[in-house]
C-alpha cells in the first residue's frame, strides 16, 4: 500500500474549481515534487495534504489512514513555508521546540531533539538568536529544523528556496537532497522551478490548471513527455517546437516545414503508423540535442544572437517565423547573420499530434 494516497482530490473556492480531481500515490521514503506554472494549484494541493485547506471532494490517506478531515496537527506532517513562518518573538531554540512543547514532550527530550536537529543543520551557534538576527539561509535552516524535530511522517516543502539568492539556492538544494538521503523521509516538495524538480525528485508530478499532466521520474519526463506542455516545461532552455504538415505511408514520416533543410524532414519511425496524410504534427527538438553540423543537417537557420555562457554558447537562430534555440559546446566560430546548419540524432526527435499528445 502507498504511504501517501490522494484519490480524486478536488478543491473549489466559491464557483472556481482550482484542483479538478488529482489522484496520486507516493511510497514511503519517496521524494515527490509538484511542479507547474504559477496558479496551477500545486501549493493548494500541498496545503490540502497538510490540512491547512479543506478538501472539497476526494480522499486523502496517510499510511492507510483516512485523514481527509483530520486536524493538521494529527496528520503528523510538517511543513516548511515559502516565507519560513518563524515565530519572530522566539529564539531559534524555542522556534524548533514549539511543536514538541505543544505535544507535551518532556523537557530533556525536547532539548535532545532540538540539539540533534541543530547539529544536522549546523545551526548550533544560532540557537539563542531571534529570527531577525539571522540571514535568509539561516532562517531557511531553522524552518527545516523545526520540521525535523517533530519527526513527521511526511515533510512538506512549499517553494522553500524561492526567497534565496541563486548561490544559496543551489547550496540549500543540495542540502535538502542530502537531508532526504540521510533521514530517508517521505517528502513532498512544491516548486515552479523545473531544475529543482529534476535534481531533487524521485518522482515529479507535473500540474497545470488543477490537473495532473504527467507523473514520472525526472528521466521519464525528460525522455518521454506525455504532451507538449510537459515537454516544454521540463528541460532548460525550453524545447523548440515546429508545426509541420505530415505525410505518412505507415513506415516513413515526411514532415514539411520551411526550417527543415530542403523543406522536408524524412523520418523512418514506427510512429508513422499513427499519422494520417495531412495531419499537423508538432516536432519537438531540445536545444541541448541540436548540434552544429553540416554532415547531416536537419535545420537551416540564420543566427540572430549568441549568448556566451562560458563553457557553452546559447544560439538563437531563425528560419522563417520560427526562433530556434540551441546550445553549442564551447565557442563556435560563427557570427550573427551567418547561415548555420543544425543536426540531431533522430532518436532525440519528439513528435506530438494535433491535440498536443506525444505520438
Amino acid at each position: 500500500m502507498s504511504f501517501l494516497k490522494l484519490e480524486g482530490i478536488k478543491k473549489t473556492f466559491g464557483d472556481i474549481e482550482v484542483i479538478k480531481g488529482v489522484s496520486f500515490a507516493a511510497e514511503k521514503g519517496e521524494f515527490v515534487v509538484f511542479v507547474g506554472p504559477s496558479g496551477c494549484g500545486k501549493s493548494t494541493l500541498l496545503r490540502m495534504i497538510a490540512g491547512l485547506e479543506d478538501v472539497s471532494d476526494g480522499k486523502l490517506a496517510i499510511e492507510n489512514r483516512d485523514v481527509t478531515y483530520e486536524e493538521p496537527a494529527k496528520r503528523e506532517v510538517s511543513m516548511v513555508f515559502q516565507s519560513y513562518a518563524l515565530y519572530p518573538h522566539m529564539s531559534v531554540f524555542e522556534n524548533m521546540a514549539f511543536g514538541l512543547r505543544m505535544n507535551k514532550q518532556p523537557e530533556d527530550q525536547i532539548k535532545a531533539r532540538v540539539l540533534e536537529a541543530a547539529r544536522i543543520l549546523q545551526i548550533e551557534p544560532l540557537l539563542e538568536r531571534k529570527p531577525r538576527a539571522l540571514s535568509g539561509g539561516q532562517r531557511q535552516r531553522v524552518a527545516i529544523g523545526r520540521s525535523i524535530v517533530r519527526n513527521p511522517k511526511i515533510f512538506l516543502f512549499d517553494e522553500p528556496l524561492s526567497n534565496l539568492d541563486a548561490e544559496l539556492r543551489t547550496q540549500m538544494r543540495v542540502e535538502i537532497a542530502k537531508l532526504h538521503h540521510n533521514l530517508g523521509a517521505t517528502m513532498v516538495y512544491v516548486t515552479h522551478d523545473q531544475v529543482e524538480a529534476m535534481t531533487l525528485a524521485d518522482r515529479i508530478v507535473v500540474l497545470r490548471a488543477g490537473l495532473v499532466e504527467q507523473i514520472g521520474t525526472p528521466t521519464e519526463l525528460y525522455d518521454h513527455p506525455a504532451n507538449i506542455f510537459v515537454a516544454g516545461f521540463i528541460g532548460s532552455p525550453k524545447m523548440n517546437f515546429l508545426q509541420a504538415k505530415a505525410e505518412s505511408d505507415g513506415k516513413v514520416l515526411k514532415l514539411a516545414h520551411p526550417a527543415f533543410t530542403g523543406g522536408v524532414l524524412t523520418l523512418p519511425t514506427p510512429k508513422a503508423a499513427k499519422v494520417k496524410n495531412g495531419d499537423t504534427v508538432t516536432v519537438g527538438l531540445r536545444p541541448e540535442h541540436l548540434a552544429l553540423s553540416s554532415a547531416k543537417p536537419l535545420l537551416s537557420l540564420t543566427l540572430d544572437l549568441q549568448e556566451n555562457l562560458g563553457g557553452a554558447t546559447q544560439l538563437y537562430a531563425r528560419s522563417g517565423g520560427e526562433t530556434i534555440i540551441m546550445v553549442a559546446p564551447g565557442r563556435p566560430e560563427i557570427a550573427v547573420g551567418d547561415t548555420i546548419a543544425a543536426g540531431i540524432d533522430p532518436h532525440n526527435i519528439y513528435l506530438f499530434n494535433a491535440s498536443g499528445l506525444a505520438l
Partner: protein
Amino acid sequence: MRPSSSILHALGLCAVIIFSMFPFYWMVTASFKTQTDILASPPLWFFMPTLDNYRAIFADSKVIGAVGNSLIVASCTTALAVLLGAPAAYALARFEFRGKGDLWFWFISNRMISPIVLALPVYILAMQARLLDTHLVLILIYLTFNLPIVVWICTDQFKSIPSDLEQAARLDGADQFTIFRKIYLPLGAPGIAVSAIFSFIFSWNELLYALVLTRKNVQTAPVVATSFMSGYELPWGKIMATGTVIVLPVTIFALIVSRHMVRGLTMGATK
C-alpha cells in the same frame, strides 16, 4: 544629513515641543504660585515657589479620593477593554463568519454618536438600575466607548501578523487559544499597548459622564478639579495643583506601556 538641515530639523522640533509643552509648564508652575502671583500682569517668570496649593488640596480629602476613584475606573475599564477587545479583534482579523461586517460596523458605530446625545438616556437607565454614583456605571459606559478603539487598533495589528505563522502553529499542534496567547498576543503587543493607553487616557480624562452619573461617592478627578470653579472666586492655584496631580498617573502609565510600542516586532518572521 547635512548640518544645516539637521539644525533646521532641531529648530522645528523645538518649536513643536515648546508649543505643546508650554501649557503643561504653565500649569505646573502655577501650581507652585500664590493666587496673586498667578494673576500678576505681566506674567511672573520668577517667583517664590510655595507648596500651599498642594497642602490645600491634600488637606481636602476630596482630591485624594477622586484620584483613587479615577484610578479604579480607568484601570478596570482598560483591563476589561483589552481583555474583551483583543480576543474580539483576533476573531475579526482571522475568522470568516456570518455577520462579520455588521459586527465590525457596530463596533465602530459606537464611536460615531456624540457622547452628549446619550447622556440623558444613560442617566435614566443608570437611575432605574440603581447604578448612579457607582464605579460600575462609569466602567460600563467607558467600556462602551473604549471597546471599539481596542477592537479597531488590535484588529489592524493582528491582521498585519503573517497568517503563515498561525498555520505553522496549527501544524505544530497549537489550538486556537494557544495560537492567540503564544503568537498573537506577544506579536500584537504594540497595538494592545497603544489601545490600552488610549483607553486609560480616555477614562482618566472623561468629564461629561462622570459629571452626570456621579454624586458624592465616586467623583473622579476631573469632576473634582472643575468643582473648584464655582462660587465667586477661581482658586487657580488649587485647580492647577489638582491638574498636575491628575496628569501624573497617566503620564507614568503611558511611559511604562510605551516600552511595548516598538515597531518591527514581526521582523524576521518571514522572508
